[in-house]
């Protein structure tokens, strides 16, 4: 048993989740594959969205996977960093917008 929670080698075993529930596992991977196909958005755009979300979700497997995916697609590091900032901006914005709730509560409680 690994002494750490995350092992980079586990990413390659992702497909094994079907071992314990083949039907749901397969449905997930079919869906996943379909989502990333070229559509109204290009596969390149989807890769950058995935990279941004990987960061906001703080999923180390996804960060490894979509950094590599981006490099394979010729996405530059400047584009990748901008995508990460988009994620960070939404994440911090989501925190800060709750400041309005705090302000509302203060205004209600204070004389």
């Amino acid at each position, binding site marked *: 048993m690994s002494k750490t929670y995350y092992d980079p080698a586990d990413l*390659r075993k992702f497909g094994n989740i079907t071992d314990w529930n083949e039907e749901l596992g397969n449905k997930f991977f079919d869906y996943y594959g379909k989502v990333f196909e070229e559509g109204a958005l290009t596969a390149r755009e989807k890769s950058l969205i995935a990279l941004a979300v990987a960061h906001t979700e703080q999923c180390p497997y996804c960060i490894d996977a979509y950094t590599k995916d981006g*490099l*394979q*697609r*010729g996405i*530059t590091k400047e584009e990748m960093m901008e995508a990460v900032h988009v994620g960070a901006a939404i994440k911090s914005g989501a925190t800060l917008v709750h400041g309005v709730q705090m302000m509302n509560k203060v205004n209600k409680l204070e004389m």
Partner: protein
Amino acid sequence: MSKKSLLARNNDLANTERQLEILSNGQFANGELPTFAKKIAITNQFPLRPKKLEILQINLGYMCNQVCAHCHVDAGPDRKEIMTKETMQECLDVIKKTGAHTLDLTGGAPEMNPNFRWFVEEASTAGINDFIVRSNLTIIRANKKYHDLPTFFKKHKVHVVSSMPHWTRGKTDKQRGNGVFDKSIKALQELNAVGYGMPYSPLKLDLVYNPSGAFLPGDQLALENDFKKALKNEFNINFHHLFAITNLPISRFLDYLIASENYEDYMISLVEAYNSEAVKNVMCTNTLSVSWDGWLYDCDFNQMLNLKVASKVQHISEYNEELLQNRNIIINQHCYGCTAGSGSSCQGVVA
């Protein structure tokens, strides 16, 4: 980035036997990954056999004006191995009678061979359909004596295939050396100026893309579109096609993989991306590679690993196409590089 070849640095990996040892050890020796021979045997593709010969690829020498970080030839200014005029003549005799429709000159920088122009003039009259010269582009700008190469290529209807790892300066220079990007852009503009790469022009100009690191190339067509858009918008450059080529784990790229601790993961990526459809059209099945000193190989990579063809005929001086076609192709773990994803060859994807 080193300015010297592995050979000049006395690097362990300049020894091809050492490279083959590495490729057979580790994950492949302990059974974690299947050897290439075992993998192709699953789909009854072992032993790998040649199909009709289509491409004769001739390496005019390992001398080059660049020292690219990923170079599988270990080429550079310090490499002195270049083809003599006598060996060129032997090649010409073969070119005249071969059934191959494509002649592919490579190096090093083939233009640096002092008999390059004579050889091109002679070969261009031998009735070959597609006559390729693999030019690194910067050679055109390297010295005044090479400035007229675009018109020379045009005169002999040469199909120019050039390396271009990215449409941005940073990525290109990191792989190929400082200043390479700007010189390459200038050279491409000069090739365009004489008609190369222009829409509908019969003067063919294709680019070769190699990933600049330990990852595989993405979709060839998508990359071609991105390259076209960026090079057209920023530099008004036109070209015809982009060949996406996978870096094979040999020579300087192998050295990089090991030094950067990417070797094991890279081999896993190659094996995981294995595609048996790509095996059907892998380039060693339709190509013969000739070294600067006239030896024959299944491909350019086997040449660099010093794995000569498994045939009675091993040298251009005793060339016999019929005998050569009746051989088993020599394989090793580096071959996974040509069968990953859509496959990879000197002509780009194969599946």
